[in-house]
């Protein structure tokens, strides 16, 4: 199957526990510290754990920039803000760029406006009155719809809700649409907000650490829930070049699979995840020897990190222990439906800056998951090559994407 012309990443936007924008995200990631702390969005005192990667209050000007702001859920706001930043950085700064008229929007989300939906239901139970407006934002499809509506997009708008693989799957779906000629430009990524159901549910499964998560560390004890959004502007090379845009990176491949094994535990040998990585590399026409670094799923749960190491070993062979590996989750938490999206932004930023951000978290690496973990500071990208971003999800979903440097070799 012809892969068609290259697909460029021409813009990136992010909202994370480090703040609103890619600049605070990269500064926080590069510093190697964590933004995971006690959340204020809801009262966490009765939960087993009390830390999360919560997004701080937005800059005051955002509410003024978007007329619908007060009626949106937090996930909607994250998505619109990230999309707007990505477009500004792509040189598409008009309020409704003409180039977006037929754009496709593909976002991942696993909770959407569930926090607002929880508020609606609580009000209903309390006094049989509740604001209908709250429930209208509850759907996981809402962030993508709000972005498309705000920007005047009339191309296909899809929301994929495959748990923690959603954001990466969304990037792959957008790549496929661009290759198929169904659109010339795409906004792709994900957005998710903290909510009590998810926070409590992961605690009920005993998957959450009461300290900020420590991916690939021997003493790791679970994940940290986070929230936010990551969105990339993807364009066919000819479309972007025609308007004078330059690539931050190239999205060169995507792969997906299912473990078909268990609803919450990954396949112990990482078979499905290995297939996703292998498929992404084949799709990108690259091999294990072409890799410069990996942005792992790296949740910090005992099972995930070992399974992921086994997946990488299976997919990459002897190269697996030699390719630098980082996890974004130690810094900003697990953004669930937006995890793959924020990690894709982090991967692109690493390529742009020529260095891989360290994996935040304390403790010695786990010898059972002997990845070449980037820690204690950024590590320069020593060899020009591709980067893989990988995610494993509830339900056994796995997804991987391959990025390559956007600038030509020096």
């Amino acid at each position: 199957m012809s892969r068609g012309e290259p697909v460029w990443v021409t813009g990136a936007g992010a909202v994370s526990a480090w703040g609103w924008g890619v600049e605070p995200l990269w500064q926080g990631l590069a510093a190697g510290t964590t933004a995971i702390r006690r959340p204020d969005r809801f009262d966490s005192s009765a939960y087993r754990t009390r830390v999360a990667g919560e997004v701080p209050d937005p800059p005051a000007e955002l509410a003024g920039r978007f007329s619908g702001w007060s009626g949106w859920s937090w996930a909607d706001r994250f998505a619109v803000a990230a999309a707007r930043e990505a477009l500004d950085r792509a040189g598409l700064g008009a309020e409704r760029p003409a180039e977006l008229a037929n754009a496709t929007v593909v976002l991942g989300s696993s909770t959407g406006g569930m926090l607002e939906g929880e508020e609606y239901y609580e009000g209903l139970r309390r006094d049989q009155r509740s604001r209908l407006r709250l429930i209208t934002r509850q759907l996981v499809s809402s962030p993508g719809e709000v972005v498309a509506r705000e920007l005047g997009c009339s191309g296909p708008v899809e929301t994929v809700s495959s748990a923690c693989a959603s954001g990466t799957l969304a990037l792959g779906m957008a790549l496929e649409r661009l290759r198929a000629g169904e659109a010339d430009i795409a906004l792709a990524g994900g957005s998710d907000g903290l909510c009590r159901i998810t926070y409590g549910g992961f605690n009920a499964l005993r998957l959450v650490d009461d300290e900020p998560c420590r991916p690939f560390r021997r003493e790791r004890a679970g994940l940290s829930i986070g929230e936010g959004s990551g969105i990339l502007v993807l364009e066919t090379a000819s479309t972007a070049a025609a308007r004078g845009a330059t690539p931050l990176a190239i999205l060169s491949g995507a792969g997906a699979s299912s473990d078909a094994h268990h609803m919450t535990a990954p396949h112990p040998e990482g078979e499905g995840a290995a297939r996703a990585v292998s498929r992404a590399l084949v799709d990108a026409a690259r091999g294990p020897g072409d890799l410069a670094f990996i942005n792992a799923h790296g949740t910090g749960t005992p099972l995930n990190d070992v399974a992921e190491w086994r997946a990488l070993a299976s997919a990459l062979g002897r190269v697996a222990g030699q390719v630098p590996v980082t996890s974004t989750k130690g810094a900003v938490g697990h953004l669930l439906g937006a995890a793959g999206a924020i990690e894709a932004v982090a991967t692109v930023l690493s390529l742009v800056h020529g260095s891989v951000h360290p994996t935040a978290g304390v403790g010695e690496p786990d010898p059972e998951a002997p990845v070449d973990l980037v820690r204690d500071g950024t590590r320069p990208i020593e060899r020009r090559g591709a980067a893989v971003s990988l995610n494993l999800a509830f339900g056994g979903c796995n997804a991987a994407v391959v990025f390559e440097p956007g600038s030509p070799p020096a």
Partner: protein
Amino acid sequence: MTAPRTVVVTGVGALTSHGLGLSPLFDALGRGEPLAAPIDRLPELAARAASARRAARVDGVAWDEWLARRAARRMSPPSIYGVVAARMAQADSGLEPGEEPDPEYAVVLATTYGACSYSQRMLDQILDHGPEGISPLLFMESVVNAPAGQVAIQCRAAGPNLSLCLREAGPVATVGRGAAEIAAGRASRALVGATEEMTPLLHGVLDQFRSLSDHPRPLDRRRDGFLAGEGALIMVLEEEAAARRRGARLRARVRAWGGAFDPTAPCADWGHDPVPLARSIRAGLARHELAVDDVDAVVCGASGSRRGDRLEAGVLRDLFSGRDLPPVYAPKGVTGEYAGAYLAAGFAALEGRPMAPPAGFGEPDPELGVTPSGLAGSAPPPAGRVLVTGSAAGGSAAWAVLERVDQP
């Protein structure tokens, strides 16, 4: 350059208010009669005036032959409906799963609301007992992709696994997304379709928006809402050459697909601009070497929604501008909205099965300019190509063309 891979439908499974499989759906479409049952009103919403009290429910439909009750105990209703329909589809296709998971077998399922009964129960647990009262099983099955995950496990499908949320456009969107996976070589087979549960809370909330009606009248001047439904309809898609080699019955070819968005749509209703979807269909048909004149029949997503039906009709008027409309079927008046049951009408049209206008239709709406076709007991000639459309509240829209296939 290798020839592009074409995609066919080799099996269909369904769990709907009309029963199991396509046969009861075909019978219902032939009569034009929906099958709805009373649905409880949530106590918190009981005091409010209700427009609708009924839904197309699957209570009482026995699905035990497809899923053991013991296994179902660990599944939410949407997971149960999805697994039942998926297994039925696999049996219908003659392609039973092997012992080992098949890495070439994708799953693409749509849902709008997910396992809302489980989410509601978890909220009750939090409110009544605090967050430590949450049941881990409820949480596992409350995630939107739980049905797709369960289908993958039960049907040994280890390929790409996607859960799409495009509201009322979701079911037909999965057909295009699944076909795209196979056409691009990322899978050789796919289980695609939709699953949904309709709970008293969800029904009550939809009724608060004046969305619902107990007597859906798609495209009728007096229409006042859609019939909420639940259940699942799932198809097996296969790469055509492989399906022919194994001697499969080919129910249809998925010939073309696409999607669009209407940015005039508010978050809780349909929009008013038919141009995006009409333009998408024209462009998509051309991309797949078809023209509007190649469409012999339309299965539209009109459900009885005031604005939704207006939009669906507007799309067809735009698309067929200057031409006579082909027969237009509006099966959601029989199947209800959600869970994809209306897709059965596409197969009915390809097979030349009789389909009656929805019961209750009596007054064409001159503003719409589209009248549902069909006559009870009268079998039309089999359609060569059927355009299936689905537009959603909030703005998303999708479409696909099903094509009649010469049997091997």
